[in-house]
């Protein structure tokens, strides 16, 4: 139960942010960290726990984002209903992509390339059809108020993204402690062996990609309502796919807290490099990139792995190891 307690305490502490932080800038930073953590956890469910590396999570993100925007602008649907529709449609796209790939046994780099291709196809489609505004994009009319999912202050948006992220992280905890999660990780570690043990690999991978698509779609809905403008590049562009996988890779794939650590670290590094290198154009991005390379090189299991390694060096851990060894030898 310990990770669940840590999860509850962490989110409870994060939940203090609107009360403790008066600054819109810092609250925005917390919001964007939770948003990145949500994106990262969505990818982590499929890539970290399921071992299916997707390079095209923008397909799910963009579907959620466009769903809430199009339903609102074209059909006048309330964005709160669009929130549900966006998540479900993105889950549907996840299921479709999963069916098209897992059904035919695509794995590894083939799966990654196909997901990338799906995102590109959707980007081109959204660039061509009228209801997404094509290349012009779609602007959600400004209508401040909680009823229209456009909060006057940032605290409203904070609670929405906090709730979404909490749901995603709770799902990740459940995956780590459920029969489904055990089967998913078995497929990740050795699919053939898992099949031999009776695991229906197709079914568990389909469930994982559907869940992953759902949470990515929610992140898309949030983005659309927070910034009120979308175009094909923003929604389905490669930047979202890269951010989705970068967050858990930096934080620690296949761990509950990896995406949160990764999101926090990426935000901190981005801000830090901007402050350190000042206003020289592009230098902060170059430093940011270099830092990421260094982090990936020296922390192959991410920040969560580093944390675990550091914890393993402590006196308590040493005592525990010694006790285990003694018990084994006895």
């Amino acid at each position, binding site marked *: 139960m310990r990770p669940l307690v840590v999860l509850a305490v962490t989110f409870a502490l994060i939940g203090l942010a609107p009360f403790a932080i008066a600054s819109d*800038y810092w609250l925005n930073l917390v919001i964007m960290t939770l948003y990145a953590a949500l994106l990262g956890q969505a990818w982590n469910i499929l890539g970290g726990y399921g071992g299916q590396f997707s390079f095209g999570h923008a397909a799910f993100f963009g579907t959620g984002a466009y769903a809430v925007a199009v339903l609102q602008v074209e059909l006048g649907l309330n964005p709160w209903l669009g929130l549900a529709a966006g998540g479900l449609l993105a889950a549907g796209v996840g299921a479709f992509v999963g069916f098209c790939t897992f059904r035919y046994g695509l794995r590894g780099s083939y799966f990654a390339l196909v997901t990338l291709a799906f995102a590109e196809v959707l980007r081109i489609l959204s660039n061509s059809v009228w209801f997404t505004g094509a290349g012009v994009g779609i602007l959600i009319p400004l209508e401040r108020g909680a009823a229209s999912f456009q909060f006057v202050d940032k605290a409203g948006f904070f609670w929405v993204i906090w709730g979404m992220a909490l749901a995603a992280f709770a799902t990740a905890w459940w995956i780590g402690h459920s029969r489904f999660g055990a089967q998913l990780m078995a497929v990740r570690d050795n699919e053939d062996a898992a099949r031999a043990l009776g695991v229906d690999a197709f079914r568990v991978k389909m469930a994982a990609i559907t869940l992953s698509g759902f949470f990515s779609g929610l992140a898309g809905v949030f983005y659309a309502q927070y910034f009120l403008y979308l175009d094909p590049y923003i929604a389905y562009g490669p930047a979202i796919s890269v951010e989705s996988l970068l967050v858990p890779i930096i934080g620690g794939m*296949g761990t509950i807290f990896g995406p949160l650590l990764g999101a926090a670290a990426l935000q901190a590094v981005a801000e830090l490099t901007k402050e350190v290198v000042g206003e020289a154009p592009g230098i902060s991005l170059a430093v940011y990139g270099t830092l990421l390379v260094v982090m990936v090189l020296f922390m192959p299991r991410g920040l969560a792995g580093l944390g*675990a390694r550091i914890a393993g060096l*402590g006196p308590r851990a040493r005592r525990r190891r010694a006790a285990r060894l003694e018990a084994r030898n006895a």
Partner: protein
Amino acid sequence: MTRQANKGGLDRRAFLAAGGAALGAGITGFPAVLRAQTESVKIGLIHPVSGFIAFSGNQCREGALMAIADINARGGIQSLGGAQLEAVLGDSQGKPEVGAAEVAKMAEAGIHGIVAGYASSISLATSQEAAKTNTPHVVDVGVSDEITKRGLENTFRFSPGYGKIAEFAVANLDTINKNAGSPAKTAMIIHEESLFGTGTANLLNAQLPQIGIEVVDTIKHANPTRDFTNIVLQIKSNAPDLIIPANYYNEYVLLARTMRQQQVSAKGIYSVLGGAASNYQFVAEFPEAADMIMDCNHWFDPNSEVALQRKKAAEDKGLYYTYEVFLAYNAVAFLADAIERAGSLDKAAVNAALAESTWDDHGMPYGPTKIENGQNQGAQPVNTQVLDGVIEVIYPDQFASAEAVFPMTR
């Protein structure tokens, strides 16, 4: 299952250590702008100085910095006892969300006004964020009509919006064509895929048939595109009378060069907000490709002493005097004029002064500013044409420095 230890296996100490490190990094990254001086007038400049539109973003930043330097050299804001303008720089990286975050950061730093954001998508996000603190926000280049149609009391645009530009472009094309005996009957549009290019193509597809020009084909391309050979072969195959490009700088240059290499013959090349068509760098580096190209774009009044002095000052600094430079310059000067007249840094007072602005020291073919719903009603583009390596204004007549050459005689 073999990675069970890796699955959320952090103990309390490890988690607190990692969290503390991240928090520490965040705190040390606290914005330097918070430590800025309080007696100066702080103007936030948010532009995409990195990313795929970095050239334009940097040009905007340079123009805005020139304006601040000039105003300070003239004694700053007189009504505030000669307060100096202080630039607070932000990089949107070409992303709306990053631009909005920069606004939030600057608002915390007690910024007095913002000039942003070059692209329409970024301007939409920055102005919306600035509206939350009622911070005066002047859009320098973004042309989307939606920017000033959302009822935001803090958002102003000195330059023309898209609807005005398109209307002007079609009307002037009609005039140019009719004056030449209507030789252009067909046109082909080659546009980039985002808001600017697609919007242009949509408007032209709707309006060109009304002036007797049939659009035989419309080709969309991605950003970036580095090989225009196939597109140019399609142009040759359709043989339109007019070629209408709507692309960003790099793609425009490559398209124009490829057309020249493939010896495409047409009666005219007529751009709307052409990324390079009215650009001194393009004309200097590729004079043959640029020759005779017409454009409907932002441009200064070639008869204005003010404009010519600023052009010379920019060129003395080694800058090409592109539309980004003079629009960003004027956006800052427009804001500074409002602060001067407001005699206060109160945001509502500055917004009111912007709304009542009748400023005319801009060197643009606009006349005194007249703001309605945040948009300067007098703002308009002009038609230019590259003639003998010089960008000349050919329309409207009162600003013209040369006669239009159409059909072109390459």
